[in-house]
């Protein structure tokens, strides 16, 4: 029980990676609160507190932070993606993607940091797409680069009492991954090609990301701050130019 006695606030806990983190934190003994747009999702453990929250709304975030009375662990996981190039992106796309992925992380950090105790840990969900671009994901890629920069700033400005790191997931089996493959002319072939580009020969699971989140949240990670931790099955360690796939 590596998180016994700790309180955790996880944004975007309805499904996918966020839900995986909520479940892993619970298993490690944390008292978990999570949130999302809409009603409490089915199957969420009764001991988990659920708030209906749009993280892009600063007033709503402030209110919830006050209601929660702070937290030991903050995980900024809530995120959206729009599969478009810059030329295709509308103002509404900008407001949605930047509102949730960038402003949402800012809103939550600003609201919670003054309420977090000594030894607290913020974990932001960045992305490999913040370091290298996914095609037709312009605003998403840019929003994740924002998260990476903000992560370093928080670590530098708010240490030593607070640690802040980002996890950069690669391709994780979630609805977002399927949406990416749907862009391909031949989604099945695209999926096989993508698998071959992973040295571990599989895509990630929410549990894979949750396991590093648990470590970063725990006191085992007392010296880890200001870093971006990539969990991608080795994909970005390999050159995208892979002659074996010609």
């Amino acid at each position, binding site marked *: 029980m590596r998180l016994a006695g700790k309180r955790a606030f996880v944004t975007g806990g309805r499904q996918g990676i966020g839900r995986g983190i909520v479940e892993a934190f619970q298993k490690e003994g944390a008292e978990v609160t999570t949130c999302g747009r809409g009603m409490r999702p089915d199957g969420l453990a009764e001991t988990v507190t659920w708030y209906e929250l749009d993280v892009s709304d600063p007033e709503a975030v402030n209110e919830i932070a006050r209601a929660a009375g702070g937290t030991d662990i903050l995980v900024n996981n809530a995120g959206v993606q729009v599969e478009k190039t810059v030329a295709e992106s509308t103002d509404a796309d900008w407001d949605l993607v930047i509102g949730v992925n960038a402003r949402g992380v800012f809103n939550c950090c600003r609201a919670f940091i003054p309420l977090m105790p000594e030894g607290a840990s913020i974990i932001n969900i960045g992305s490999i797409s913040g370091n290298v671009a996914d095609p037709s994901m312009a605003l998403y890629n840019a929003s994740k680069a924002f998260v990476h920069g903000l*992560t*370093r700033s928080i*670590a*530098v400005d708010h*240490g*030593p009492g607070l*640690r802040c790191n980002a996890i950069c997931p690669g391709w994780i089996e979630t609805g977002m991954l399927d949406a990416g493959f749907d862009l391909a002319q031949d989604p099945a072939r695209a999926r096989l090609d993508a698998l071959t580009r*992973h*040295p*571990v*020969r*599989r895509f*990630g*699971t929410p549990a*894979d990301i949750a*396991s*590093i989140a*648990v*470590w970063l949240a725990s006191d*085992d*990670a*007392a*010296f*880890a*701050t*200001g*870093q971006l*931790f*990539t*969990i*991608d*099955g*080795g*994909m*970005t*360690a*390999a050159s995208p130019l892979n002659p074996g796939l010609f």
Partner: protein
Amino acid sequence: MSLNGKIALVTGARGGIGRAIVARFLREGATVYAADLTPEGSLDKHEDDGSHFVKLDVTLESDAIAAMNQLRDTHGKLDVLVNAAGIEIEKTVEETTLEEWNRSFAVNSTGTFLASKYALPLMREAAKSGSSASLINFGSYDGFIADPGLAAYCATKGAVHALTRAMACDHGPEGIRVNAICPGYIDTPMLQSFFNGEGSGGGGGNIETLQKAVRDVHPMRTYGTPTDIANLVNWLASDEARYASGQLWVLDGGLSAQVQQMRF
């Protein structure tokens, strides 16, 4: 007990960081082979901790072969290899002799190559159990940004970083994960030696003062300890890290997240 039933070999195991890794592995239920030049390594003495000592000069191919043969005969597999053996020459390129340069590469880069080369077949055996084997190299934050007067050391660590990605790429499909940990300033005999070196920027000044200055430039306001590093080694060695491969894990108290700090 996250390493129950696993067989692990740690090189440089009786040095500052190596000892912390061995202690953590033992606590997590692994069978641990502690490889070093002498039972004391870079420290004054060593007390029995339940690990099996293996005499290993990582620069010698014959030593690497002998160590892995011993593991093959006893266990037939190796789940975890940690390449922690390393040396540091505190000099600029101009001051570094060819002998010192070659010695740095022989231990830090070739040593990592040799231990890995002969461990890989045993790690493939371990991976047949269904959970991946884990090979953990020691890079350094100095492989990304330089400390003054450490030219050869920085270069050897850059080599380890590239080798880490290459091995992850080549051996991932065989069930072997390969990562490197890139420590920042960790309280070890090697760090003390760096402070004593002329190139460290100490300017012959008081070591205690320098240590305070170094501490103050870290967002976490402290050096790391060998235990901090062992905590991450343990995670990477465990099955929890089953999707982590090909990465360079910087653990430096936030030091390299910031740009150069003005001192005055």
